[in-house]
């Protein structure tokens, strides 16, 4: 059995930042990640980030992962990272986590604190044949083409015109895939105008108030029928269009990955604005279970930039709770919250601002 001060589950933007802060304060940290390398979803993001210099604005996602990893290296003697390993469960009777390397080697971990930075899971849409190979999550498509250099298909149909759908449509085109269309159920494009104009400029049509009626194919996807919907989300007959595609990319939202928090008995609340069930937490990102902290998409579906700061808060506070309290603790904590508030300004994050108070613990 492995013992450590702080177990960080997930080595994406939130987890890496949590580990950096906790190790900087002096705690021993173990990061466990199920991917083949650290960095989480950052390693496949080729677009430049927004925000200010503090949040690495203007830098491409995969380069931010490199920056964080080299920052973590500074505390190398206190940090251990294990990849290709899934944390499979938490046992409340003895406070032990189970972990599985690959598919066959189990081991146990007993930490004093855990930071759950597991991220999110892609949603799907229930239409006929949505289980056929070729219907892939948007993140999965990004992994194939941006990390491993594999062409995910020849002709693609994108479902969802939020930022993820728009950005990945452009990236598909960069990878040589013909993007046939983007469909969006809402009457308006959800993502930033700058991303939408980029894909319109290269001739990709965006159909708003449209959804997929049916996916076609036998062994794998061959096409889809799309249809216009009215204000009550009912299909308008006669508006069907057939789109030829061997790849249907779903960018229809994410759900927080929170199984470990449920297992630990953390108090959860259903907050649709934040992506579904999320743990109740305080300003330290501590959940109702005193040994459990949360950060990133597992706490609320937001952006990598906010995930990184939440990670830093969780790392700083989890370490402090074990007696590793840096002299600049208060200033740092206040500084991180000021940064979060700056990032959550503006109309795009309106929903987040409405949802967050519902997930905060009344002190």
């Amino acid at each position, binding site marked *: 059995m492995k013992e450590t001060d702080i177990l960080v589950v997930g080595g994406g933007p939130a987890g890496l930042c949590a580990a950096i802060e906790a190790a900087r304060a002096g705690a021993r940290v173990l990061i466990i990640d*199920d*991917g*083949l390398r650290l960095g989480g979803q950052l390693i496949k993001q*080729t677009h430049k980030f927004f925000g200010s210099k503090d949040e690495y604005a203007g830098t*491409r996602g995969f380069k931010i992962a490199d920056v964080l990893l080299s920052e973590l290296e500074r505390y190398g003697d206190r940090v251990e990272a294990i990849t*290709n390993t*899934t944390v499979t469960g938490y046992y409340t009777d003895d406070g032990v986590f189970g972990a599985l390397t*690959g*598919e*066959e080697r189990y081991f146990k971990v007993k930490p004093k604190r855990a930071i759950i930075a597991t*991220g999110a*899971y*892609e949603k799907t849409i229930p239409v006929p044949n949505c*289980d*056929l*190979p*070729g*219907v*892939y*999550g948007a*993140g*999965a498509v990004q*992994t*194939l*083409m*941006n990390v*491993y*250099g*594999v*062409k*995910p*298909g*020849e002709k693609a149909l994108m479902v969802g015109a939020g930022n993820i759908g728009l950005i990945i449509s452009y990236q598909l085109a*960069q*990878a*040589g895939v013909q993007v046939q269309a983007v469909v969006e159920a809402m009457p308006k494009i959800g993502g930033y105008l700058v991303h939408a104009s980029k894909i319109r400029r290269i001739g990709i049509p965006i159909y708003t108030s449209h959804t997929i009626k049916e996916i076609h194919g036998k*062994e*794998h996807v061959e096409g889809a029928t799309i249809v216009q919907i009215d204000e009550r989300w009912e299909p308008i007959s006669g508006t069907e269009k057939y789109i030829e595609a*061997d790849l249907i990319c779903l960018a229809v939202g994410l759900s927080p*990955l929170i199984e470990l928090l449920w297992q630990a008995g953390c108090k959860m609340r259903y907050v649709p604005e934040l992506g579904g069930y999320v743990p109740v937490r305080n300003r330290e990102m501590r959940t109702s279970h005193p040994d459990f902290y949360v950060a990133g998409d597992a706490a609320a579906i937001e952006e990598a930039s906010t995930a990184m700061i939440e990670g830093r808060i969780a790392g700083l506070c989890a370490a402090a709770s074990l007696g590793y309290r840096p002299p600049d603790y208060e200033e740092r904590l206040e500084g991180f919250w000021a940064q979060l508030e700056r990032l959550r300004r503006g109309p795009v994050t309106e929903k987040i601002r409405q949802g967050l108070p519902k997930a905060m613990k009344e002190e």
Partner: protein
Amino acid sequence: MMGGWIREHPILTYQHGRKVKFYVDGKEYEGYEGEPIAAALHANGIRVYRKSMVLERPRGFFCAVGKCSSCFMVVNGTPNVRVCITPLKEGMRIETQVGKGEIR
């Protein structure tokens, strides 16, 4: 053929590992060592990884993060291997999984 490796990209340069041979249902293919099995399969145009338990519907890649269970295959005799997060190794014997797979 569907899939294939991306050889030219406006932003990215790919650093692949060593080229290795592997087998799918007895047929030989090439992929890069250490990269997910699913990436190599997809690059070789292989999209159907298993048949579902009840209706034997084709299943393939979906989430790429080891969560959805869609990509289970039999790898070197072990069933239910998540090929999206399992690294490819020289000489791996991969089989399309039908149903639950048999634990030997």
